[in-house]
């Protein structure tokens, strides 16, 4: 096996392992992007096309044609067998298994064709109405504002209080530090899903149910965040802090002028994680928020799910819209994430 397992890379022409690597990467692009691309395309399909089998890549709609003598446009079919085989016809009506059609050039003569012997003529068309409907139907910007407010404020609070705690836990030697660390690591593993009911009751007792703060505050002290930042801060040399102390900096000033800037990569990682969690969070906001004016995009998106029916066309369009901001943020923070994970996860 191959230089492929090492990081040595020749300067010569492409080795066959390079081809293999590129093949793997291209497969990766297909596999990683493909499904999402399909999601985006599907969001431009009509509800009817969404239900179509076999599923087709592009959004099709049936061709409709205005035929003289008929007030509404008629659906166009192609006849596959019989005397009219190969011709495009417009269907006037269908009775049972027989279809009554007319040739566009002879709109008066009705011909009977078995429904087996005709195929709809279709063309690609984007159902942009899926999107237009969203803005018409409800106050999209209210939900967008709520989601953004929750995400931004929660991320700022998360970064602030978790970095403060991580600073204390990494740079001070005090009684009880071990206990606090153990508690935090212990709960690192308990998924919030299993404590929904007690958490709901506590948040209620704080009077935060049905407020954006009820969504923001409970998740702000993430054990993962403290852990991540602490690991990173441990690598900052204590001498720098001592130097700052000699420079007459207060401990708070050391925290925000020295520790915070130096932890920027780790903070960027936590920021993107937090933004992701908050933006995509569904279960907890669903419980904590009740009024529609407080709803987040994820909640609004899911309100297309009824008891029996799901409005897929709207739901997909909304999904794509909620995806856009997070992808933009990611594109912006991308390079920080790479270096950030490099220096936090590895140690």
């Amino acid at each position: 096996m191959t230089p492929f397992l090492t990081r040595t890379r020749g300067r010569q022409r492409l080795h066959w392992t390079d081809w293999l690597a590129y093949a793997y990467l291209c497969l990766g692009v297909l596999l990683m992007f493909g499904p999402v691309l399909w999601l985006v395309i599907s969001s431009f399909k009509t509800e009817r096309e969404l239900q179509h089998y076999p599923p087709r890549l592009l959004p099709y709609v049936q061709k409709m044609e205005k035929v003289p003598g008929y007030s509404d446009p008629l659906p166009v079919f192609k006849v596959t067998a019989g005397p009219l085989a190969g011709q495009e016809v417009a269907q006037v009506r269908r009775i049972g298994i027989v279809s009554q059609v007319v040739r566009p050039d002879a709109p008066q003569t009705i011909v009977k064709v078995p429904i087996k012997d005709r195929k709809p003529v279709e063309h690609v068309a984007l159902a942009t109405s899926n999107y237009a409907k969203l803005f018409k139907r409800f106050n999209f910007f209210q939900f967008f504002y709520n989601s953004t407010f929750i995400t931004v404020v929660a991320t700022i609070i998360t970064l602030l209080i978790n970095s403060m705690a991580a600073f204390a836990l990494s740079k001070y030697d005090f009684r009880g530090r071990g206990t606090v660390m153990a508690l935090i690591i212990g709960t690192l593993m308990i998924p919030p899903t299993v404590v929904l009911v007690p958490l709901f009751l506590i948040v209620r007792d704080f009077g935060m149910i049905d407020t954006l703060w009820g969504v923001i505050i409970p998740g702000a002290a993430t054990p993962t965040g403290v852990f991540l930042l602490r690991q990173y801060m441990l690598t900052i040399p204590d001498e720098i802090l001592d130097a700052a102390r000699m420079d007459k900096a207060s401990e708070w000033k050391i925290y925000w002028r020295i520790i915070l800037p130096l932890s920027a990569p780790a903070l960027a990682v936590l920021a993107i994680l937090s933004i992701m969690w908050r933006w995509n969070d569904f279960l907890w906001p669903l419980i904590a928020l009740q009024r529609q004016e407080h709803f987040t995009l994820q909640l609004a998106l899911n309100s297309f799910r009824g008891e029996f029916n799901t409005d897929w066309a709207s739901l997909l369009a909304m999904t794509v819209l909620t995806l856009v901001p997070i992808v933009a943020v990611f594109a912006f923070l991308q390079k920080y994430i790479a270096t950030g994970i490099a220096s936090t996860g590895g140690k």
Partner: protein
Amino acid sequence: MSDLELRGVTKAYGAAQVIKGVDLHVAQGEFCVFVGPSGCGKSTLLRMISGLEPISGGEVRIGGEVVNHLGPAERGLAMVFQSYALYPHMTVRQNLSFGLENLRAPKSEIAERVTAAAQMLQIDKFLDRRPKDLSGGQRQRVAIGRAVVREPRIFLFDEPLSNLDAELRVEMRGEISRLHRRINNTMIYVTHDQVEAMTMADKIAVLRDGRLEQFGRPLDLYNTPDNTFVAGFIGSPRMNFFKGHVRGGAVTLDAGTTVPLPAGKFQLAEGAAVTLGIRPNGMKPGNAGLPLTVASVERLGGESYLYGTAPDGTAVTVHSPGQTRIEPGTQIALALDADDAHLFSTDTTRSLLRKDA
């Protein structure tokens, strides 16, 4: 500008005592070097003076005022760290002005002092660079500059040159000495390198195992070391020590030779176990004397060093001016110069030199 006084200063981590009572007075304007092997507590002592490390017992006085209870910021000191501890995310200028900003100095004054310090240390060209874009020597200058701009009462240096290569170290040594002469401030300098201590210090404090072994001028320490530790630590190459006993005004070495001693210079007790110390340049290859089997020869051109063992197994270093013809493997005899000899009690390791002599 102030003097520094330590009175019975101790430091303990739980049961472990690291500093075991140090008394010391560094006069105003003096350049004092703390020297000792690693783990002797010299850096801890410096950090206690700085206020970064709490003091377990005793008093630290700066300018006559007890500062035990004061934090590092309030003592009016500045410190240069072994790793420089520059703020990596700030430019040189920001590094230099950070402390002044904390003191809420006016902006114009900050700029003035930063420029002055930068010019003095020849780093004015790099003011807008970040530490990672500087060479080791430049970083060192920035670290010193950061202390200089503060105009502290006392400068503290914690092994500042240990990360530099030999050539730069010599250069910076001179630089720091010049700086001291120029601003004539009290400076405390920690190093494990006795050459630095000898070349730079007004006063040297030799520390071992949390205790002050000797405190004095460099040449005093060289010429009249209080004990075998100081004698061995100061001076390069190291002093040779020979075990022996006092036999009628002379020392009979375990290696077999008898060395007569100048009368009245030492406190002698007949039959006492003593250690004779002679520096490498206190011995000459001669026709008779202490037999030495030469193991290796270092020829430096202008001078030579012979390394070998005495008959009792004692390792011996001999300095020989000029070039020598002696080859490794030969046996020679060494003439010992008794006037250059130091005598210590083997039991207490203390010097037997008469104080009144």
